[in-house]
């Protein structure tokens, strides 16, 4: 409520609502006009029914749990490796000079092409999906952790050294608190690509998970269900995105807020 009132005061709520209504009306007009196949652009009523059909289907939640588990494992593995490598890259200028450029160029290469090889390593089950997500999120987490470590105010480091802090104390007391906000931002980026990696892998080869459900709906030409699934995925991605972004902003504001 408070957020809505704030938007109202700043004069953004009304235009945003109007834009949303406009877009939905344009969709409905396109659906009813018959210019495109009715099945491909279903009217809003059919979309809502499709979305409800997905949410009310207990089978969906079972598959969502599978995908969620794969995603969590992928983030844990890829994120931990990315943070560890990022700390090394950030701390050592020599290693960064030797390898970071390659990492920057490797980061955007399409990871899905590794899927056939990952199947060989990790099997056709959830293992290869987890590996796919982990490989995807490793790079953005590495790069933003390295940048975050380099962005730590050198004064903080000098203070820590003049107090004769050990390396592990510097890591825990200086680097991690000072770099946590940009690192969380990296995790946010990593989450996005890990989600894509896991779901695309599921659409390519799987017998469970949300990606599998999408392909099933495609094979049956059940467009409202496919839209329903995609809407759920986009909402889930947006919600996690906002949550991590919020945590990052709070972490960034934290030390200053505590000082005041």
């Amino acid at each position, binding site marked *: 409520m408070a957020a809505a009132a704030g938007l109202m005061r700043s004069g953004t709520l009304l235009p945003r609502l109007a834009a949303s209504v406009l877009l939905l009306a344009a969709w409905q007009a396109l659906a009813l006009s018959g210019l495109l196949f009715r099945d491909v652009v279903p009217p809003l009523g059919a979309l809502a029914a499709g979305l409800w059909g997905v949410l009310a289907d207990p089978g969906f939640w079972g598959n969502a749990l599978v995908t969620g588990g794969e995603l969590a494992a992928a983030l844990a593995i890829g994120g931990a490796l990315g943070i560890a490598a990022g700390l090394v890259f950030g701390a050592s200028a020599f290693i960064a000079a030797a390898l970071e450029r390659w990492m920057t160029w490797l980061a955007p290469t*399409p990871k899905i*092409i590794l899927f056939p090889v990952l199947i060989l390593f990790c099997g056709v089950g959830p293992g290869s999906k987890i590996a796919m997500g982990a490989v995807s999120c490793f790079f953005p987490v590495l790069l933003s952790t390295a940048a975050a470590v380099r962005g730590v105010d050198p004064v903080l480091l000098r203070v820590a050294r003049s107090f004769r802090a050990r390396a592990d104390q510097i890591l825990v007391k200086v680097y991690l608190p000072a770099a946590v906000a940009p690192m969380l931002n990296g995790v946010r980026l990593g989450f996005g690509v890990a989600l894509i990696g896991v779901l*695309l892998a599921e659409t390519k080869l799987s017998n469970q998970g949300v990606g599998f459900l999408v392909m099933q709906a*495609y094979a049956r030409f059940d467009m409202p269900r496919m839209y329903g699934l995609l809407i759920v995925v986009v909402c889930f991605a947006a919600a996690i995105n906002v949550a991590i972004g919020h945590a990052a902003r709070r972490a960034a504001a934290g030390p200053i807020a505590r000082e005041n």
Partner: protein
Amino acid sequence: MRQTAAPLLGIGLVVSLVLLLQWAIGVGLVDEYTVPRPSEIAAALPRLVTEEHVASRFMVTVGETFAAGALATLVGTALGAALYRWPLMRRSFEPWVAVLAAAPLVLAYPLFLVLFGRSSLTVVVIAFASALPPVVLQTVTGFAAVRPVLLAVGRSLGMGRAAEFRRILLPAALPSVFTGLRLALMFGLINVVGVEFLINLGGLGALINDLSERYDLPGTWAAIGVVVLVSVCFFATLDGGERWLRRRG
């Protein structure tokens, strides 16, 4: 000395990893039915050229990437300029663009298959749709970051809207327009190769899919190597190009 030593170390590390792998497979530490010997992978490379037409597949992928990237740059820059020009539109639609930029659009590829058929058009449309939102956001941010004092000078010189756009806004926002172009080509290549692989159609992505479905392991690894090399060269060129432009500007 340090500047030249570090990149050399990087290359040396990669070479020694390859040699280590060759040795590990040779003595049976790594299963050769999972990872072929690097020498076998290298031996598969000529086959990719003569039998799998890697050159023409490369041209297909690059063509689709540039089509999607150019389209996303044109449309995205125009939309971004429009959102900047009409603040009400920006307030209304920017959140939607941000949602689209964060949404995993490529997942909707079965939907695009239904809409456009299993053709190059589908590949280009998906890559275009994925690249468009980031370009729009980048352009709006670029225009909005133009220093207000420049605009004030323009107004005090009595510039009209068209002159203001051509002589102040565009030159000042040009670096971020180029960032938009880089983003468009980047998202373009990622999605083109990914979709080619997923729907097994067209260029380099489909080549990997083909070879892996034939259980041609050295070929698959060689093709993955080629794609990684192509995209690393592509991104390195974009990176270098943008830095060169920024230095000149």
